[in-house]
């Protein structure tokens, strides 16, 4: 049985939904990223407590009509990519919430 993987939003970033895109800025070098719709769903669901496979099953598969195996593969790659840029934290244990930077939404 494979280990659970947990993902959490990094506390060192700021994010905001603008139009239909999620803009994310990293405190490191004030680097700016735009998340695509799949990355946005993953980002929004990354609470540190829900395992990645549950996020894929409950959010990504239903929203994007994609097969679970394929979605899981893509989500793992995406999470690794986001982690590489310091946007997401990945752990095999639940990640306690300590985010001082709360996401805000505007119309």
């Amino acid at each position, binding site marked *: 049985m494979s280990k659970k993987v947990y993902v959490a939003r990094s506390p060192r970033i700021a994010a905001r939904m603008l*139009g239909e*895109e999620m*803009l994310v800025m990293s*405190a490191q070098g*004030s680097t700016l990223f735009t998340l695509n719709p799949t990355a946005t769903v993953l980002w929004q669901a990354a609470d540190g407590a829900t395992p990645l496979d549950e996020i894929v099953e409950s959010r990504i598969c239903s929203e994007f009509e994609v097969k679970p195996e394929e979605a899981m593969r893509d989500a793992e790659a995406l999470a690794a990519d986001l982690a590489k840029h310091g946007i997401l934290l990945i752990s095999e244990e639940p990640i306690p919430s300590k985010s*001082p930077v709360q996401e*805000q939404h505007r119309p």
Partner: protein
Amino acid sequence: MPELALQVERYSAVIVIGDVAIRVNTRDSSFLDLLQQRYSGFVSAESGAEFEFDVELVEPTFADPDAEVNVSHHSGRWLMERADFRAEWNPAERSGVIHQKANPYSMDAVLRIVHTLVLAKQGGFLLHSASAIRNGKAFLFAGVSGAGKTTISGLAPGDVTLLTDEISYLRKHDEGYVAYGTPFTGELARLGENTSAPVAALYLLTKGPENRIEPVAVTDAARGLLGNVLFFAEDPKLVHRVFQTACDFVHRVPVYRLTFMPDARVWEMIQ
């Protein structure tokens, strides 16, 4: 034998940018003259200031003024360093010290950093853009070096008041944003006027074969704006504030892409 006492003369100038007064103290009268000349129009006769810096002049070194700035926060104090200066600032005590050579570039850099930190908390930011007032409204022209900030500033007709050709000073006020003049100059080397006006529009500059104004989608506007915001500190809370302010700005201020030829007729479209 009487005790020897050495009294060192101290000279001060209060530099007011964006309604924020910063007093600079020095023991060198020629450096004070240099500051008063450099920030002419932004030096106040008032004695009150929100923050105060003592300047300790150091011997010149072969420092590169274009080197990267390092800004960090330790135990309530901001440390600002570049090859040509080292400064410490304690916002709670409203005071700091700057070790620098006797040139205006280092002081410029310190003032910019301090103002970015002050503005971040006030819902404002410094923007790599020219800005100017026409008909009581401020217009911003943002872009990287070579985008045309100096060109469009130089083409401004006589009824336009130039606030800066390089770095704009913006702060939220009521439901909108206000642009203030700055002494931070670009290639035009002309100080902005020390005045302010509500911001009517932000133009993202592109040089092209014709003069054209096009609306910009909100995400592109935010990207274009954030790409030109000056911010030096890698402090998550302040970066968050600046980011949220920029996102708020693009919801309140119309943002356009301005393609223009180096021709004064472009100003017919800026009203």
